[in-house]
Each structure stands twice: as structure tokens, then as C-alpha cells.
């Protein structure tokens, strides 16, 4: 017998192990060492959340009651996995191409990015999953109870509620910690997947161990087990053909439609080829999980005392035979099954709730609409965290209210039947272009309604949520509306009855309404993209150029993706078009990709709504529709090729255009450079000449003499500085500069820069926002030159920032062997058309400030950074003027020397 407190200690240790594993996986993924985290084995193991505590404990109980029928729950998924090439491969391909975040998102995206459908699917999933989560809590509570009570098969618990509460609380913390680190639901949750894979191994090993012990430890081997089966109450297989096939079908449907399965199978999938491995490895896992179920049930029925709960045989059999450690392992197996299911399920549901309910609501209630969304990222993360906690609280409440009733035992199948209502809309969506939004919405609603009425509500028992009278006589005495005997068909198994009516009416309404309604253009385009997911490129674009400013899009995207990621994405897109900087051309192609990227964070419908605020009225062009309508594959293929070519041409043309512009600019620049030099030299010269002539006037009073001599002195210094700058620039431009490489602390350099710049407009109070802790990092470079750049940027901010309370934010970080320093002020920034110019010589934008240099500062900065192996860029969309300095942690030459 294992003492209760040791059980608690082992449990805690196990949870700590999970935390460590999840944390380590996250760390490795961050460091880019995640290759093995994305192996097909891990993928297959993560699918094992299909096997919940219902499998681990319940399957034995199920077998003890109905013989072999329990295997249907695992045969269904086996059939689906064996047919991966037909359905799953397509789902995964679509999921990746469209950056689908959840099953609700898949449906919403397919049917014209309709949020209504997202809401319906979310509702179905939450309603179906809540009792299922309660079931997991119950199983943990019961299994703890086995250890806590005096007798192994006892039920009484000191405090059942407390156990469930602890488990629910702990799980929500774990899930929030590791499930909401990235906003992008489309990115992999490495920590969680790793923890789940570990749990998958634990539960398999535990069940196999118990099975082996039962077959060879208690019984005398396979032969003996078969004899015992033949002697047991379940010796004759009461196979009911309809139930056998119906349950297999429902389980197959559930594998595709359960939100948690969709999460691990499609959303977390990192490589389509993993499916090929999972196609045999996951059935193998399921087979091993069910292999010993029957022997355990039979031996349990034969050896355990009358009235022992067969649902707990996995635990009580080893305990009754004095195998405390084995029982502990079995307990951990059950614990793993329950926790992994709850974790993934709550992540999947929270993603749906936040993307399809909270965010759209918030955006529609907010003033200014989606145009200026502000910090959507924070909102979505917060709503996801709250949703996780809320879903677990819902599960706990359900458990608490139902009081762990026996009704829960059947809830697994009820839940399966509920989510399988999504199947028609899902399969119709990926295989039939004619499926429409109205059809999907009606079909889903009808199916969901019938399921609620005929299966879900009656499951609470007579006088639970439906009165016994309605159950027995139908509402208001209408016999053919009796929940468990619709349309007068009596005597059918209630589960089959509900599945039959709900799914067949669901499908009929879905198909019928789809045939009768006409899809809108976005639906038709999405339909094409889904059904023809394997064509290289359907060649249909949802957006035409609508005069969107890339900078506006960047500002919005930063609110959703976070500044770093948005900037990286925009930079990469610009580079793809052959452009430098952060602002790509707003081509339809780019807008489409941006929309997908945003959809990965906030869901398709919301992303679409946000983008359409900018590209409004330009959603679908006549040409696009022609392409949709055209059924001729040849034309489509041909035009795709043409498009690819013209795209290539457009890219080259864009690059050429830019080079040409640059050349033209250069020659103009050369002329203006001379004229500007002349102007900059002549201006101080004018003062000097005029005042020296004045000084020649013998009648000039002494005080004036003194003053004018000072002016001459000042202007001479200005002249000298200008000449110095010019010389400096010419040396830097010719790359003949001698660098003095030293090591320094970046923090000290920034301190010095702020100090040195303080005599620029010293009368202004200026606030610096710095994260001094992050600044402490070594940098090996020509520190004097780098300091020169910093001083220039800080004093520019002091000089030109036109905010009432000027502030300068300095952000530093290290990324991929480079140091990045951003200088962001809160002024009005630099207008788009000037952003390209500011690094040119004499490109001073205003003339109001004469105090500074001649407009060579940023040109010199740029040259210095190039000489240091780094660069300086203007960072648009930050609210104010923003400059990004980046340079290697140590000089390139030194790095390569060390590498050699």
C-alpha cells in the first residue's frame, strides 16, 4: 500500500519534471536547436492525446460491461490514419497554406472568412468539451481516492472537490505558462508538445506494464487469459452490428473534428511528411494501448470482489496484489492521460474563443474600429489566458455540479457525437467547391440542435435539464418529438439514434442549402483555394492595389505581431520584391501574405476585417472572379505560368527601377552636392568677410569690436567643422579609414552619448527611456566611431523632436550575432517621401536649426556603420522618428579569423 503523502510527493515531482521538460524544449527552440523537437516520432506521440483518461481507465470498464465493443473507439481513428493520403494530408496542407489556427478558423476561413461560422463552431466545441474536461478531473479525483481511502476499491474521499480544484488550478497555470508564450497560434508550442510526448510515453508504458503484470503475473500467460475470457461474464461477444459500425464512424469523425486533435494534428504540424510516419505509428500506439484492455477487464472481473468499480481495475488490480509501485506507475499513466488532454483542449478552445469571440467583439466596440487597433497583441494574449482559466473553471464547475455522476461515464461518446457535427461542413469544404456559407451555417446549427436535444440534454438523466415528462412523452405531448425517439422511431440505442438523426439532417440541410444559395466572391475564392489546395498556385488574388500605405500596414501589424516580428516580416517582404528597407510595395500578393500572417495570430475573419479597412472596396476584382469562374484547368495553369513569369519580370523591373532612380539621384546629387558645398562654405564666409570689413572701420566702438571678433571666430570654427566633416566623409566613403577596434560596454557608450549630446538644446527638458539592464553587453568595434554615431542620433533627436514633452526611447538587444540599437523619439517623425533622403549628404529637412552641422551627420553615420560592418536604417511606423543601428558583436574579419 502506498502512503497517500508519497503519492502526492510523486505527483508533484512528476509535474515538476513536466515543467522542466517543457521549459527546456522552449529554450532549445528559442536557440534554434529544435530540429529533433520536430521529428515524426514526437508528432506521433503528440497525437496520443486522443487517448485520455477515458481510455486509460474507462476502456477496461467499458470492456467489462460490453466486451470488445470498446475497440471501435480506436478502430475509427486507425481507419482515418490509414487513409491519411486522402483527408489528413489535405487538411494539413490547407492548414499550413492558410495559417489556420483552429478548427473553427478552418471552417470560418473556408466559407468566406465568416466570423459567424467561427462562433458557431466555437460554441459547439466548448459545449461538447466541457463535460469531457470534467470527466478528466473526475478520473484524477477517483484515482487519488483509491489511494487515499483505506480499502483499495473504496470510493470515499476525504475531500473530492479539493483534489479536482488543485488539478484544475495547476493545469491552468501550466497551460497559460507554456500555451500562451507565442501569440501566433500557428507557431508550434514546443514546450507543450514535448511535455505531451513525454506523457504519451508514460501512459503507454504504464498500461503495458499493468497488462503484462496481469497476463503473466496474475494469470498464467496468454492461454490462461483466453480460458479466463471464455469463463467470464463477457465470454460471448454481444456484437450489435449497428452500434459497432456507428461507433467506429463516430470515433473516426471525432479524430478529425475534435478541437484538440485538430490542434496537434494540423496546427502543430511542422512537416507534412510526418503524417506518413504517423499513418502507421499512431495506429500502432492505439493498438498497444488497447491490447491488454480485455485481459485486465477479465482478470479484474474474476479476481476482484463483487461490486468493485471496473473503471478502476487498472489501479486496483496491482494494489490488490501488493504491487504498490506498479499502481503508482499506473496512477501516473492515468494522470498523464488526463492532464495532456486538458492542456491541449484548453489551448485549442482558448484560441477559438479569443479569435472568434473576444477579439471581434472588442474591435467592433472600440472607437475608431479596426483601423487603429493599437495593442491587439496584448489583448489577444490576455483573452487567451483568461479563456484557458475560464474553460478549466467551466470544467470544474460542471464536475462539481454533476457531482461526479455516473452520467459522466458516457460523456466521452456524447462529446464525440457533438464535435462530429462539424464533419459535413469540414469535408464538404475541402472537397466540394459548391459548399456555401449559408449551407454550412444551417447544417451546423441543425446538427448541433438535434444533438443537444436528443443526446446532450437527456444525458443529465430524467429531470436533469429535460423533465422526465418530455423524455417520456415529448414536448407538449407531441409523441414524434420525443428526444430519444424522434419521428416515431422507437427502440433505437439513444446514442445511435442521436448520431443518425443529427448527422443525416445536418448533411442534408448543408447540401440542400448549399445547392440553393449563391456564394459571395470571397467564399468562391476560398473554396477554390481549399479544394485545389495541391495546385501550386491558384493564381487568384483577393486584393487589388488600393492605394494602401505600407507604413500604415506596418503600424497595424506591429500591434498584432509585435514590433520585432512585424519588422522582420516587412523587411523580408521588401527584400523579396528586391527592395531595401522596411516598406515593401503594397502589391496584392504582399497584402495577401500579410493577411495570412495576421490570420495566424488573430484568426482569418479578424485578419480579413482588419486588412479590408485599408484596402477597402478593392477586395475582389472582375478579373479575379473570371479566374474563379473558369473551370478550364489548362487556362488556369497557363495563366499561372504567365503570372509567375510576369511576376519575375515585375520583380526585375522593380529592382531596375530602383537602381535607375538611384543612378539618376546620384547624378543629380553630384550637382547638388557641389552647389550645397558652395552654399555651406559661402554662408560662414559671408559673415566672416562682412564683419572683418566692419572691423576695419576705425570708428567702431570697442564693445562692438569685441562682439564682432567673436562672431568671426565662431564662424571660422563652423567652417573648420564643415571641412572636417567633408574630409571625414570622403575618407569613410573610400573605405580608407583606420579602425581602432576596442571592446566596450554598450551601456557605457550610450551613457557617454547621452552625456555628450546634452549640450544640444540644453534648455529643453528631455526624457530618456532606457532599459539599462538590457544595455549591458560587450561590443567589439571601433568604439569611438560607434559613439560618434550614437551622439549624432541622440543630438538629432534633441534637435528635431517636436513633441511637447520630448522623449527618446533607446532599445537594445542581441539577435543572431548582431547588436541592434533602436533610437525612437515621440515627435512627428519623418514623412514617407523624405525617409529615403535623410542619409544623403546635406539632406537637412528643415532649415530652422542652424546650430548644427551642415546636414552631413546622418551621411557620416551611415558611412561609419558600413565601415563597422553594420548599418543604420530608418524604422518607419514607430510613432516618431526612429533609427535602427545594427552591427556585428565583433568585427567580421575577426570572426572569420577565429573560425579559420
Amino acid at each position, binding site marked *: 500500500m502506498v502512503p497517500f503523502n508519497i503519492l502526492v510527493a510523486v505527483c508533484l515531482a512528476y509535474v515538476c519534471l513536466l515543467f522542466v521538460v517543457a521549459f527546456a524544449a522552449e529554450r532549445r527552440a528559442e536557440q534554434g536547436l529544435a530540429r529533433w523537437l520536430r521529428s515524426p516520432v514526437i508528432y506521433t506521440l503528440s497525437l496520443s492525446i486522443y487517448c485520455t483518461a477515458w481510455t486509460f481507465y474507462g476502456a477496461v470498464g467499458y470492456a467489462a460491461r460490453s466486451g470488445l465493443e470498446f475497440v471501435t473507439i480506436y478502430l475509427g481513428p486507425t481507419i482515418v490514419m490509414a487513409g491519411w493520403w486522402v483527408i489528413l494530408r489535405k487538411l494539413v496542407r490547407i492548414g499550413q497554406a492558410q495559417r489556420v489556427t483552429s478548427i473553427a478558423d478552418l471552417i470560418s476561413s473556408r466559407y468566406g472568412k465568416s466570423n459567424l461560422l467561427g462562433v458557431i463552431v466555437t460554441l459547439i466545441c466548448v459545449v461538447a468539451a466541457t463535460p469531457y474536461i470534467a470527466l478528466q478531473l473526475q478520473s484524477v479525483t477517483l484515482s487519488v481516492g483509491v489511494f487515499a481511502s483505506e480499502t483499495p476499491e473504496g470510493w470515499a474521499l476525504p475531500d473530492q472537490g479539493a483534489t479536482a480544484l488543485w488539478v484544475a488550478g495547476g493545469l491552468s497555470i501550466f497551460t497559460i505558462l507554456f500555451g500562451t508564450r507565442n501569440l501566433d497560434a500557428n507557431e508550434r508550442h514546443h514546450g507543450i508538445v514535448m511535455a505531451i510526448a513525454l506523457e504519451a510515453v508514460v501512459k503507454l508504458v504504464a498500461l503495458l506494464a499493468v497488462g503484462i503484470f496481469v497476463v503473466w503475473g496474475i494469470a498464467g500467460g496468454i492461454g490462461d487469459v483466453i480460458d479466463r475470457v471464455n469463463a467470464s461474464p463477457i465470454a460471448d461477444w454481444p456484437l450489435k452490428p449497428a452500434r459497432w459500425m456507428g461507433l467506429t464512424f463516430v470515433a473516426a469523425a471525432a479524430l478529425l473534428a475534435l478541437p484538440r486533435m485538430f490542434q496537434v494534428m494540423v496546427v502543430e504540424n511542422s512537416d507534412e511528411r510526418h503524417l506518413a510516419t504517423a499513418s502507421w505509428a499512431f495506429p500502432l500506439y492505439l493498438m498497444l494501448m488497447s491490447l491488454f484492455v480485455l485481459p485486465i477487464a477479465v482478470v479484474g472481473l474474476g479476481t476482484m470482489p463483487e461490486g468493485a468499480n471496473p473503471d478502476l481495475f487498472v489501479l486496483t488490480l496491482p494494489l490488490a496484489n501488493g504491487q504498490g509501485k506498479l499502481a503508482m506507475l499506473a496512477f501516473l499513466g492515468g494522470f498523464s492521460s488526463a492532464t495532456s488532454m486538458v492542456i491541449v483542449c484548453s489551448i485549442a478552445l482558448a484560441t477559438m474563443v479569443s479569435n472568434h469571440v473576444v477579439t471581434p467583439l472588442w474591435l467592433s466596440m472600440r472607437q475608431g474600429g479596426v483601423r487603429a487597433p493599437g495593442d491587439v497583441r496584448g489583448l489577444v494574449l490576455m483573452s487567451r489566458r483568461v479563456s484557458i482559466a475560464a474553460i478549466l473553471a467551466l470544467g470544474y464547475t460542471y464536475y462539481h455540479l454533476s457531482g461526479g455522476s455516473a452520467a459522466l461515464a458516457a460523456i466521452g461518446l456524447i462529446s464525440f457525437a457533438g464535435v462530429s457535427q462539424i464533419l459535413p461542413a469540414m469535408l464538404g469544404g475541402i472537397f466540394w467547391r459548391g459548399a456555401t456559407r449559408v449551407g454550412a451555417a444551417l447544417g451546423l446549427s441543425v446538427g448541433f440542435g438535434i444533438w443537444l436535444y436528443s443526446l446532450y440534454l437527456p444525458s443529465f438523466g430524467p429531470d436533469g435539464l429535460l423533465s422526465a415528462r418530455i423524455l417520456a412523452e415529448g414536448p407538449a405531448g407531441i409523441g414524434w418529438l420525443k428526444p430519444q425517439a424522434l419521428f416515431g422511431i422507437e427502440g433505437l440505442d439513444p446514442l445511435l439514434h442521436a448520431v443518425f438523426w443529427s448527422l443525416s439532417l445536418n448533411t442534408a440541410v448543408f447540401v440542400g442549402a448549399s445547392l440553393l444559395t449563391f456564394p459571395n466572391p470571397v467564399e468562391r475564392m476560398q473554396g477554390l483555394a481549399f479544394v485545389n489546395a495541391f495546385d501550386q498556385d491558384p493564381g487568384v488574388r483577393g486584393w487589388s492595389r488600393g492605394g494602401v500605405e505600407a507604413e500604415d500596414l506596418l503600424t497595424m501589424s506591429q500591434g498584432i505581431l509585435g514590433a520585432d516580428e512585424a519588422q522582420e516580416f516587412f523587411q523580408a517582404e521588401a527584400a523579396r520584391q528586391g527592395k531595401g528597407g522596411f516598406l515593401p510595395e503594397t502589391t496584392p500578393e504582399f497584402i495577401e501574405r500579410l493577411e495570412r500572417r495576421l490570420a495566424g495570430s488573430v484568426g482569418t475573419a479578424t485578419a480579413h476585417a482588419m486588412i479590408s479597412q485599408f484596402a477597402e472596396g478593392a477586395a475582389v476584382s472582375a478579373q479575379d472572379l473570371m479566374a474563379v469562374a473558369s473551370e478550364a484547368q489548362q487556362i488556369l495553369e497557363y495563366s499561372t505560368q504567365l503570372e509567375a513569369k510576369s511576376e519575375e519580370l515585375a520583380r526585375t523591373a522593380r529592382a531596375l527601377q530602383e537602381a535607375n532612380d538611384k543612378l539618376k539621384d546620384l547624378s543629380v546629387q553630384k550637382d547638388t552636392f557641389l552647389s550645397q558645398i*558652395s*552654399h555651406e562654405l559661402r554662408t560662414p564666409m559671408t559673415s566672416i568677410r562682412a564683419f572683418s570689413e566692419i572691423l576695419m572701420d576705425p570708428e567702431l566702438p570697442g564693445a562692438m569690436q569685441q562682439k564682432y571678433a567673436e562672431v568671426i571666430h565662431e564662424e571660422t570654427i563652423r567652417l573648420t567643422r564643415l571641412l572636417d566633416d567633408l574630409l571625414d566623409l570622403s575618407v569613410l566613403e573610400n573605405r580608407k579609414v583606420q579602425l581602432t577596434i576596442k571592446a566596450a560596454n554598450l551601456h557605457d557608450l550610450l551613457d557617454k552619448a547621452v552625456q555628450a549630446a546634452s549640450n544640444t538644446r540644453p534648455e529643453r527638458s528631455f526624457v530618456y527611456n532606457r532599459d539599462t539592464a538590457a544595455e549591458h553587453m560587450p561590443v567589439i568595434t571601433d568604439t569611438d566611431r560607434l559613439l560618434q554615431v550614437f551622439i549624432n542620433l541622440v543630438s538629432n533627436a534633441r534637435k528635431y523632436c517636436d513633441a511637447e514633452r520630448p522623449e527618446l526611447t533607446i532599445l537594445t538587444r542581441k539577435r543572431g550575432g548582431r547588436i541592434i540599437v533602436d533610437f525612437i523619439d515621440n515627435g512627428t517623425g519623418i514623412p514617407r517621401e523624405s525617409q529615403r533622403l535623410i542619409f544623403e549628404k546635406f539632406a537637412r529637412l528643415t532649415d530652422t536649426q542652424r546650430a548644427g552641422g551642415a546636414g552631413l551627420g546622418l551621411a557620416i553615420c551611415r558611412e561609419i556603420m558600413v565601415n563597422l560592418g553594420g548599418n543604420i536604417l530608418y524604422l518607419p511606423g514607430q510613432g516618431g522618428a526612429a533609427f535602427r543601428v545594427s552591427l556585428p558583436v565583433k568585427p567580421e574579419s575577426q570572426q572569420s579569423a577565429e573560425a579559420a
Partner: protein
Amino acid sequence: MGRHVLLIEDEPHIAEAIRYILTRDGWAVTSLDEGGAALAAIRREVPDIVVLDVKLPGRSGYEILDDMRADPALSGLPVLVLSANLPREVPAALPGRGGLSRFLAKPFANADVLAAVRQMAGA
């Protein structure tokens, strides 16, 4: 009478020098350091001559000159244009005929400024 100069120049030191030169010769000098308000100031001050820099914040000297010439009330006002740009960039014919506008390159001799102002204002 007839000795009022409006000086539009943004470089404070140059403005100070010209003011000294002209004041010493008995001119009343009003100065302005940007181009945006130039036309309004010209209408308000009614000077006898305008000394105008080309590169000004707000508006360039040439723009101001064009506007003056387009305005019948100001088209006859003499303007002395000062510029530090290369002489070849100066428009060959400054707007305005009959010696109403003249160009002087920076740096200038003080005597030249004085002579030009005297001659153009007809004093």
C-alpha cells in the same frame, strides 16, 4: 524719407552685418528671419527696398519674388537678392524689369551691398 529697408535673411550673423552696414548709412532696417511671413511683412512695412536671401526656411526667396511681381501693388518694389549658391544656378533673368531686381552673390563686399541699396532705392 525713402530710407526704409526690409531685410529677409535667416542667418543671424549675416543679418546682423547687413543691418550694421545699412544702419550706419542712415537706413531704417526691419528684419525677418524666415520666408513664410515675408509677403505679409512687405505689405505691412511698405519698405523702399527689400533685401532678400534665397535659401530661407518657409519659402524660398525666388518664390517670394515671383509673388511680389505678380502683385500689382508690389511689382514696382526694388529687391536685392542675396545668394550663397553658385552664380550659374541663378536664373539668367531675374523676374522684374527695369533694374527692379538685382542679384548679389555671397560673400559680398560691404560697399557693394550699400551701393546697390542706395542705387536701387533711388536715394
